[in-house]
């Protein structure tokens, strides 16, 4: 499985802070986002991602057991 963490309004979109998706057919961040778009009919445009707590690109590899965080524009401070 791949763990997906949802923050801020992503929690509302996905109905929770944490999702687990099957890693079959998933090789990159882009694959994760495509899966979420189709499985949840979710708009994830403009969302940054992190893989295992490091900011990622769409091409960043994702594999079994990894944690992918969906990071909306930050607003700390």
């Amino acid at each position, binding site marked *: 499985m791949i763990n997906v*963490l949802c*923050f*801020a*309004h992503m929690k*509302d979109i996905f109905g929770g802070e944490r999702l687990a998706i099957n890693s079959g057919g998933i090789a990159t961040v882009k694959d994760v986002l495509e899966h979420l778009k189709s499985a949840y009919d979710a708009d994830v445009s*403009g969302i940054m991602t*992190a893989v295992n*707590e490091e*900011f990622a690109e769409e091409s960043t590899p994702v594999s079994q057991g990894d944690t992918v*965080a969906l*990071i*909306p*524009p*930050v*607003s*700390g*401070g």
Partner: protein
Amino acid sequence: MEKRFFVTSEPLSVEELAAEVTRPEAGAVVQFIGTVREFTKGRRTVYLEYEAYHSMAEKQLEAIGREVKERWPDAESAVGHRTGELQISDAAVIIAVSTPHRKDAYEANEYIIERIKQIVPIWKKEHWEDGEQWVGDQLEQTRYPDGAPGGGNK
């Protein structure tokens, strides 16, 4: 205090953050306190809620600390950021920087808050009398645009 760069649900202490960077080599300690503002664009905030990707946020704060060291080798810095529900005037973030001379401390301190707003995974949710919204959610899906006293302001 154990960490110099931390996220906490507990109230922040100006004195503790200052103590983290105060040292004999320093001739200046500059602190920034980011507080909860009551009115934004004419709209009254009742309270703010901060959420963090805790572990990554602390890593990112530490990374900013390293950036400061590269730019101002003589600077020492410490940052605490709150999470949870904050009331008007509560401190959401405290940044402390010490340097031998004051100019660097002012500059490094401002650098840190600007970087926090760019690369640290922390979000705030505005709670108004008539609605709520995650800041950064440009779609404003949860806002009630018509029922607000300040709703006409933009």
